[in-house]
């Protein structure tokens, strides 16, 4: 599904922050992406959701060499990838319901066609009573779940989450991990970027460890 071959990344004329990355993310797989701060986790996530281009190497996603894709094609490819940002990036002027429905709205779907899907998902993540709440009045955990719901509403093939438990207490972190596991069981490949060893120890999954820009894979 995703294949990196000898991928390197540098910002401007600086040194390479990612070096010779060669790995694959298989369909229905679950993996943690970890490493110390500054190891390049966020940069790798940005490569994975096509926010930046590599300085060298090949990135193939869903059978397409991303270097050859037009901007519109990359946008369409991005619809198959769900992203959960560490800072949530919910739109403050929109309700929880509208935030979660946004990916369906950009597909041009009418509200009547997706209302039920969004409501079901929001109930599933425990936000069934917070549909009309604006993000500023949501708690950290509620924001996180809304962000996750928005990332998965369009049923992406790949879910990327950047430090999804960074702002929540251990109990909620455990519940969020269960949510990701459930999503993975329903067919979504999941990549969770975290440096929370405790979280990784709760679930036996593949680990992609970044250290000084290089990747070590522990199956």
């Amino acid at each position, binding site marked *: 599904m995703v294949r990196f071959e000898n991928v390197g990344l540098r910002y401007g004329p600086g040194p390479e922050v990612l070096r010779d990355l060669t790995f694959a993310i298989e369909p229905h797989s679950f993996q943690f992406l970890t490493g110390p701060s500054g190891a390049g986790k966020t940069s790798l996530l940005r490569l994975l959701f*096509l926010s930046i281009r590599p300085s060298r190497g090949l990135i193939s996603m869903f059978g397409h060499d991303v270097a050859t894709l037009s901007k519109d094609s990359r946008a369409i490819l991005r619809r198959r990838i769900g992203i959960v940002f560490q800072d949530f*990036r919910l*739109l403050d002027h929109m*309700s929880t*319901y509208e935030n979660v429905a946004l990916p369906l709205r950009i597909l041009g779907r009418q*509200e009547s066609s997706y209302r039920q899907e969004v409501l079901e998902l929001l109930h*599933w993540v425990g936000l069934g009573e917070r549909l009309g709440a604006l993000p500023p009045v949501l708690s950290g955990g509620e924001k996180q779940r809304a962000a996750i719901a928005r990332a998965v509403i369009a049923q992406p093939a790949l879910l990327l989450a950047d430090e999804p438990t960074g702002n929540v207490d251990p109990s909620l972190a455990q*519940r969020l991990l269960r949510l990701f596991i459930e999503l993975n069981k329903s067919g979504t490949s999941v990549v969770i970027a975290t440096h929370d060893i405790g979280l990784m120890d709760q679930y036996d999954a593949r680990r992609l460890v970044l250290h000084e820009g290089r990747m070590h894979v522990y199956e």
Partner: protein
Amino acid sequence: MTDRPLADSLISPPPAHPESRRATSRIVPRDSIAGRPLIAVVAIMTFLASLTTGAVMLVLASAAEWQSDVAREMTIQIRPAAGRDLEAEGKQAVEIARAAPGIAEVRPYTAQESARLLEPWLGSGLALDALPVPRIIVLRVAADRRPDLAALRAALGASIAGVTVDDHRAWIGHMRAMANTAMAGGVGIMALMLIATILSVAFATRGAMATNRPIVEVLHFIGARDGFIASQFQRHFLRLGLIGGALGGGAAMAVLAGAGVFRDVFLGTAAEEQASALFNTMSIGVSGYAAVLGQIILVAAVTTLTSRQVVSHTLASIE
């Protein structure tokens, strides 16, 4: 605030929540765009551009009417000289002119009429006999046939010494040049106003893009195409352009319509007579109002396209 427990699974489809049924929010909120200042700028620009258009149309219509009037007439002038009988030569010129093809009417000016022509410069109660006043004969050209001016000049010249035939070509040339200058000036002013509008909209769009950068990024990351993102801004600027254009164009229409009212109110006064002499009806007519309406649409279109262009340019810099 406490977190609610996650539902383990879906037991049954929940009822539609009332809050989910409310009108869908705009992706780019209206109040995030500095709308009022931009509406004011667009309204002022449209107002000035519409007034310019109205003024140019008045000048063009009046110039066309003057040209038409002047082109339908020619003037024979017989200059006085010692030992000449102006009366007899005048009658001879009238006969020659009446015989010429393409002349519909020949009207010799009497001495009194000639005196009236000189009144603005020399005052009333003239003793024309003491002045070398030329004899003037006005010819009205037939609508369906142009006279042979060269043949008429030759015929008159052969019989009467010192006679001239003026077809007012020089006047028409001057008026045409004046009308063209007014038109060029109007187009120039319109171009400057459009450029000022484009620059204002471009600055406003850049400001809106900077304010809404987080929204743009989220849309980008969830797979929105650039065209979709641009359309979210474009619809705001179309609305602002239409409101500003309608306000400015509407005000200009009111002022132009007021010019007609001015004529009616001051009918018979010196001011009205001078204005009527210059601009005839003082009305830009249906075509003038249609032109102002077209300008409102043009300004709205320019506002929309400028904002789209700026948004697209900004989005191009985002991977």
